[in-house]
């Protein structure tokens, strides 16, 4: 076979492979989901849903904020029917932009009102608690009772944060709701003055704490459980702030239906499934998050939900106000390492 023939055949083969691997069904019983939850954390559930209902689910996985941005640029032409977000910030952004429709009343009522939008634009699926992850080899004294203690000289240069990360921003927004902008800005400035160590995201902080690079850091509880599964010898542990402290905020991962979706009924059906017993048990047992519906109990590895005082915050307003939160973080000077 001459060289051009090889080239032609290889090209044809590759094109064929590409077409085969992209061929997707286009039946009417198809739901398009943009998911900020990664495939590991939701893929098996979506497969179960298809098996149970016959509704095909096509998923675009990505970073929650990136996908929210994409939907906002797509506008009413978005192919997405459902958006699943890792954090209230990204889905709140779409809610404020008027791109989310209203979820069916019966679906909304599956979740406690504190974990859904009061306008019905999104529902919480699972919960993640903010914690102080610490290196047990480097800490031998009492750990702080409140996140506000971290501005004291005892913690100078010893706390890691991820100010550019969505979950930290949601936490700051919640602090503004509860304690006001002045207290929040003072705390942010206090952390900056106390030489807080900035990292890019939760996993980077947990790894840094595990190595002993920084003795403790503010993250979501989930990441240290995952790190311990991957490396049983890792020296990092979660510390939960005392009852009612804003430092132990529970942040919901959330889902909403796009306003222009022509598959509203199937979308509501999917949300109901994700709030049902199968899915909530998966969140509790497999991903070690707090289940928010169907009476499923949280894993014994986690402190009980009612000790966290999380349910008192208005999560709908938590989603909004991202811009002001960013202004405060920028003003505090916390960002630059």
């Amino acid at each position, binding site marked *: 076979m001459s060289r051009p023939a090889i080239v032609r055949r*290889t*090209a044809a083969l*590759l*094109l064929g*492979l*590409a*077409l*085969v*691997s*992209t061929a*997707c069904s286009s039946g009417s019983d198809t739901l*398009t989901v943009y998911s900020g939850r*990664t*495939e*590991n*954390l939701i*893929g*098996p559930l979506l497969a179960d849903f298809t098996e149970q209902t016959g509704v095909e689910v*096509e998923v*675009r*996985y*990505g*970073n929650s*904020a*990136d996908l*929210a*941005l*994409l939907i906002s*640029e*797509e*506008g009413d*032409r978005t*192919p997405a029917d459902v958006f699943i977000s890792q954090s209230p910030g*990204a889905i709140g952004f779409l809610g404020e932009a008027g791109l989310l429709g209203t979820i069916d009343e019966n679906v909304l009522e599956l979740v406690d009102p504190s974990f859904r939008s009061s306008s019905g634009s999104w529902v919480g699926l699972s919960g993640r608690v903010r914690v102080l992850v610490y290196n047990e080899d480097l800490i031998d004294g009492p750990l702080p009772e409140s996140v506000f203690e971290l501005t004291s000289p005892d913690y100078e240069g010893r706390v890691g944060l991820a*100010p*550019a990360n969505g979950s930290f921003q949601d936490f700051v927004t919640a602090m503004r709701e509860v304690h006001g902008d002045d207290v929040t800005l003072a705390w942010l400035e206090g952390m900056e003055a106390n030489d807080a*160590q*900035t990292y*890019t995201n939760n*996993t*980077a902080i*947990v*790894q840094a704490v595990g*190595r*002993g*690079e920084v003795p403790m850091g503010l993250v979501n509880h989930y*990441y240290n459980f*995952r790190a311990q*599964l*991957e*490396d*049983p010898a890792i020296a990092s542990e979660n510390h939960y702030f005392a009852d009612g402290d804003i430092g132990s905020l529970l942040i919901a991962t959330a889902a909403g239906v796009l306003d222009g979706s022509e598959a509203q009924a199937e979308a509501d059906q999917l949300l109901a499934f994700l709030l049902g017993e199968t899915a909530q048990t998966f969140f509790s047992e*497999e991903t070690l998050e707090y289940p928010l519906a169907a009476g499923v109990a949280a894993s014994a590895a986690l402190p009980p939900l009612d000790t966290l005082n999380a349910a008192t915050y208005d999560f709908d307003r938590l989603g909004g106000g*991202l*811009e002001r*939160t*960013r202004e405060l973080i920028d003003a505090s000077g916390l*960002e*630059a*390492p």
Partner: protein
Amino acid sequence: MRLRPLSAAAGVVGVLFLFPVGYLLIRTVTLGTDFGDILLSRATVQPLANSLAIAGGTALLAGILGTALAFLINRTELPGRRVLRWVLALPLVIPSFVGATAVLAAFGPGALVGFVPRFQGFWGALAILTLLTYPYVYLPVLSRLTSTAASLEDAARLLGDSPQQAIRKVVFPQTRGAISAGMLLVFLYGLSDFGAVSLMRFDTITRVIFASQLSNRSVSLTLGLVLALVALAVAAVNRWLPARRPPIATTGTRQIRYSLGRATLPVLIGVLAVVGVSLVAPIAVFVIWIVRGSATVGVGYSGLGDSVGFLGAPILGSAAAAVLAALAAVIVTLPVAYGSARRRSVLTESAGAAVTSLFALPGLVIAISLAFWAIRAPQPLAGLYQTLPLLILGYVLHFGAQALGPAQAAISAVPDRFDEAARTLGAGWWRRFRTVELPLIRPGLLAGAGLVLLSTLKELPATLILAPIGYETLATRIWGAAEDGFYAEVGITSLVLIVLSALLTWPLLIRRQILS
């Protein structure tokens, strides 16, 4: 003046590459952005200065390292050079956030090798980016050296020059164009990087772009525009610099290799150290992650037993996307390379600067801009949204610069008189291109294709945003696993990615004459 077809084609390509900047302009203007306010704020100036510092520093170091490695492999009797010349290209395929995570896990207090300082801040980012990007210089210079036969050096040696003098006075000038083209790529990559710099905790403009993308669109878009304009300016200056003497055509294929003498061992240790930190250390960390995590994996698809099966589709997806993107990028940028090398004009140079500048934009910005244009396009173009052709276009726009540089250098090196001779003999343009020019410029085209191929294999944001729904690549798999701390899965997928890139670059870079 009549516009020649070649210039017209170059102009069309240039316009295509301006669409992402057009999006940034439209959006910033419609948002009523106060440019001055954003540009002069404290929150912009320092990160921008940091970006320029890290990009410039990396370009310089990668320029030196990549050039030195290419000369050692091609012009000396370095032991193991046959394997090394191939292995040295591979660090380019490691996504920077994975490389940085692995290097953090490998070196420093509390890491695998605990007695060395930790990589962090400016110097850490500089080291990691240099080790991951020197192939942008190494490959084009190697390709240039391969096309430079011994006749020049023979002449220099006959006139009494030592081997060092011959290299410095005769061979090195032949590679200057390739070195500066490669360094430009490294500089632009340094501007666009977020993964490595953010893990090294070095604050750059990309952090501001991403941190404000939802909360303050004006800031995010304006700074994207700033990055594009800086890149355009640098690319334009690079193009309008006084044209150097074109490389001298050499005849024959014989090449001289010099003995390193007593320096052989220290030099070999140095080269192996580069491979050690940029490739072996990450691979060792991947293996540890796999071994350590395999006993306890339990969630989702991360079971190691499933890994081989579930990686089938991503392997095909990665291979198809990378090969198609490499071919498309070479073909699309060829008119610009040709126009610029043969009929340099303001139009061809502007098109070249446009093509080059897009490599400095974060992939996400390019992807969102393409989404913006495609979804608003009239039918049937809008039907291309989130299909494979649009994804390939995204790769071509982002990585076209990598195909353009080596192609232009290769075309410049073909003397006009060959073309004139063929023309005198009555050959049409297609025949002249196919039988005279193509065989001579093929090494340059392949070098460019190789760079685009490796870059596409690790590309992430454009793939996540623009790929047909359900289309997976190894890079998207790695991202998904890394996002939630599934390190065993990151490890195995990264190993497969390195093996795949090795297999794909083998025929491209080794079997063909480019590196042989």
